[in-house]
C-alpha cells in the first residue's frame, strides 16, 4: 500500500506548500531504511502531526527537517529552496525538543533571549521580545528563575517561548508533552493549538499519542514502518481508515476476515466466515481471491433492534466476556464463524449479560468498512 503518494499528489496543491519532502529515504546502515520513500507537503499555516508507534520513522523525518539528520536519498525544500545541505542554525526553524532541552546554566530569560543573540537583536529590543514571548505563555514573572526551579509544565512553556521568540515561520515539536501528566497535557494541547492559530505559524508535531493528534491537528500523517500509511484530517482518519494498520492504530477496531462477492452501487457485498452475507462501504479494496477485511468500531455495534431494518448487518453470537465500565459495557462475542467481536453497548438496568448467553447484534452498513486483507 502506498497511500502517501496518492494522497499527496491528489490532495496537495504544491503552491501553498511550505515544506516539501520528495522521495526522501533515510538509512543508517545501507540495509535497513528508517524512512522509505517519503513524499509529503506541509501547507503554510497548518498544524500537521506525524503520528506513529516508536520506530516508525516520524522522529527521523522531523530531525531531517530540523537539519540534524541528512536524507540518504531525496530532497527536502523549505519555502521552495532545497535545504538538505543547509546547517540547522541557518534554517530559521523553531524546535521544541522532547524533555525541552532548556539550557540548565542559563535563566529562563537568558534561554528565551538565546536565539535573539544570533539575529542581531540586543538590549532593550531583545528584552521586550523576551517579555512578550514569556507573556504569551503566561510566565512573565519567572524570567529570573533557572529551568531546574520550574515545574514540568512551566519548563514546557519556556521551551515554547524560546522556539517562538524569533518569529519563525515553521515550528517543529518532538513529543513535547510526553513528560507531563494527563491533565496538564490536555491543557497544554489546547494552549499550543491556540498559539499556533493566533500566530498563524506552520507547525509540524510528532507524537505517538493518537488522542493528542486528533485534538490538535489540521492534518495527521500516520507513520508505520518508514512510510506514511494515511494522510488526512482527523475525522476522515477516524471514520475512513485507509488500511488495517490505521484502522487498528487509531481507536479500537474489529477486523474480520471475509470474501468479497461483488458490489451494489457504492456498497460492497461480502461473505463472512459463517456463510452469512454482509454489506460494507469502501468498494476499492480488493485482495487476492477476493479475500478482504471488514473493519467496524465497537461503538458502532449494538443490540439488534426489533423489526426488519435496511442498511444494517445483523448477526448472532455467544457472549464470551462481559466487562461493566460504568456508562457502558464491553461484550466480547464469538460470532461470524469463530471470530471474537467486541461491542460497546450502553449500560442499562433492564438487560444483563453473562458468559454463554446468546445475543443478536447489528451494525450499520456505512460503519462497516472494507480494507485489504
Amino acid at each position, binding site marked *: 500500500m502506498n497511500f502517501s503518494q496518492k494522497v499527496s499528489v491528489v490532495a496537495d496543491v504544491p503552491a501553498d506548500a511550505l515544506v516539501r519532502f520528495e522521495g526522501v529515504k533515510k538509512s543508517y546502515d545501507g540495509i535497513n531504511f528508517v524512512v522509505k520513500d517519503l513524499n509529503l507537503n506541509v501547507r503554510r499555516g497548518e498544524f500537521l502531526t506525524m503520528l506513529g508507534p516508536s520506530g516508525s520513522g516520524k522522529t527521523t523525518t522531523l530531525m531531517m527537517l*530540523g*537539519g*540534524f539528520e541528512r536524507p540518504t536519498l531525496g530532497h527536502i525544500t523549505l519555502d521552495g529552496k532545497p535545504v538538505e545541505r543547509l*546547517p*540547522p*542554525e*541557518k*534554517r*530559521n*526553524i*523553531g*524546535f521544541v*525538543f*522532547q*524533555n525541552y*532541552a*532548556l*539550557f*540548565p*546554566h542559563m535563566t529562563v530569560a537568558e534561554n528565551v533571549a*538565546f*536565539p535573539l*543573540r*544570533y*539575529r542581531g537583536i540586543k538590549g532593550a529590543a531583545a528584552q521586550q521580545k523576551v517579555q512578550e514571548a514569556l507573556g504569551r505563555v503566561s510566565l512573565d514573572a519567572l524570567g529570573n528563575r533557572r529551568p531546574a526551579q520550574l515545574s514540568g509544565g512551566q519548563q514546557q512553556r519556556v521551551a515554547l517561548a*524560546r522556539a517562538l521568540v*524569533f518569529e519563525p515561520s515553521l515550528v517543529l515539536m518532538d513529543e513535547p508533552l510526553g513528560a507531563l501528566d494527563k491533565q496538564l497535557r490536555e491543557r497544554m494541547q489546547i494552549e499550543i493549538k491556540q498559539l499556533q492559530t493566533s500566530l498563524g505559524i506552520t507547525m509540524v508535531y510528532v507524537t505517538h499519542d493518537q488522542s493528542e493528534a486528533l485534538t490538535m491537528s489540521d492534518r495527521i500523517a500516520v507513520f508505520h514502518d518508514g512510510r506514511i500509511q494515511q494522510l488526512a484530517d482527523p475525522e476522515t482518519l477516524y471514520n475512513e481508515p485507509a488500511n488495517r494498520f490505521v484502522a487498528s492504530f487509531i481507536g479500537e477496531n474489529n477486523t474480520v476476515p471475509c470474501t468479497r462477492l461483488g458490489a451494489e452501487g457504492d456498497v460492497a457485498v461480502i461473505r463472512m466466515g459463517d456463510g452469512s452475507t454482509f454489506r460494507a462501504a469502501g468498494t476499492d479494496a480488493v485482495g487476492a481471491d477476493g479475500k478482504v477485511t471488514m473493519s467496524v468500531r465497537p461503538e458502532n455495534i449494538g443490540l439488534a433492534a426489533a423489526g426488519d431494518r435496511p442498511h444494517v448487518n445483523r448477526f448472532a453470537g455467544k457472549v464470551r466476556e462481559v466487562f461493566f465500565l460504568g456508562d457502558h459495557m464491553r461484550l466480547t462475542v464469538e460470532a461470524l464463524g469463530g471470530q471474537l467481536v467486541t461491542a460497546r453497548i450502553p449500560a442499562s438496568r433492564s438487560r444483563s449479560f453473562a458468559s454463554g448467553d446468546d445475543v443478536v447484534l447489528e451494525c450499520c452498513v456505512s460503519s462497516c468498512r472494507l480494507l485489504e486483507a
Partner: protein
Amino acid sequence: MWLPSYATPSERLARTLVVALAVAVLLFLIAPLFIIVPLSFSRDPFFTLPVREYSLRWYEDFFGNARWMNSIVNSAIAAVLTTVLATTLGTLAALGISRPDFPARRLVMALLISPMIVPVVIVAVGSYLFFGQFGLTNTRLGLVLAHTALATPFVVITVTATLSTYDTNLTRAALSSGAPPASAFFRVTLPNIMPGVVSGAIFAFATSFDEVVVALFMTAAEQRTLPVQMFSGIRDQINPTIMAAATLLLALSIVLFAVLTLLTRQRRA
C-alpha cells in the same frame, strides 16, 4: 539496617562477619596513608610510634633545601603544562568519540586508553630512547610530552562519561536557535560538561605531579621532579624529610580529591 527483616540467625552472623571484614579492609586501605603524618612531625629520626616529641624540624629541612624547592617548582611546571595539553586534546577527542557517527569507535577507544595499560617502564624506556634521537631527553618538553600521553586517557574517560549523560538536544536547541557550531559549543555544550572537563584536568594534573618512572628516565638534575627526588631519597637512605614531602603530597591529594568530590556531587545533584 544492613539486614532484611526476614534474615535467619546464621544469615545475621554471616552478615556481621562480612561487615567486620569490610571494615578491617577499609582500615587496611586508609591507615597506612596516615601513618606518615605523625612521623613527619616527630623530633626523632626513627620511624616508630608513638611519637615522643613533636617538632617541625623535617619541614624546616624540606623548605630550607634548594633541591627540594627546585623539585617542587619543576613538578608544578610540568604538571601545569601537561594539564593544559592533555585536557585540550582529551576533551576534543572525547567530543568526537561521543558522537554517534564516529567511525571505528571501539578501536580508537582502545588506542586512546592504552597509555593507562602499557607498563609505565615501557613508556619510560621508549621515550628515553626515542626522544633521545631528537635531543628531548633531559628537557622539560620531553617530560611534558610523555606525561601528556599518560594523562590523556583520564581526560578522555571523564569527559566521555559526562557526555554520556549530556542531553545532545541542548546542542541541537542551540543550533536551531541560530547559534553557529563554535558558539553552540562554547555557550551551551562546554558549560554543561565543565564538571567532567575539570575532573579530567585534575586527574591529568595528579598523573603528572605524582609520576616517578618516566620522570626518572627523562630528567637530569635540573628538571628533577618532586617524586624523583623522593624516590632517590628512599633508595639511598630513607630519612624523615621524605616523610614531610610525602605528607605534603598526601595533603595535595586530599585537596584535589575534595575538589573532585564536590564537582561530582554537583553533577549528580
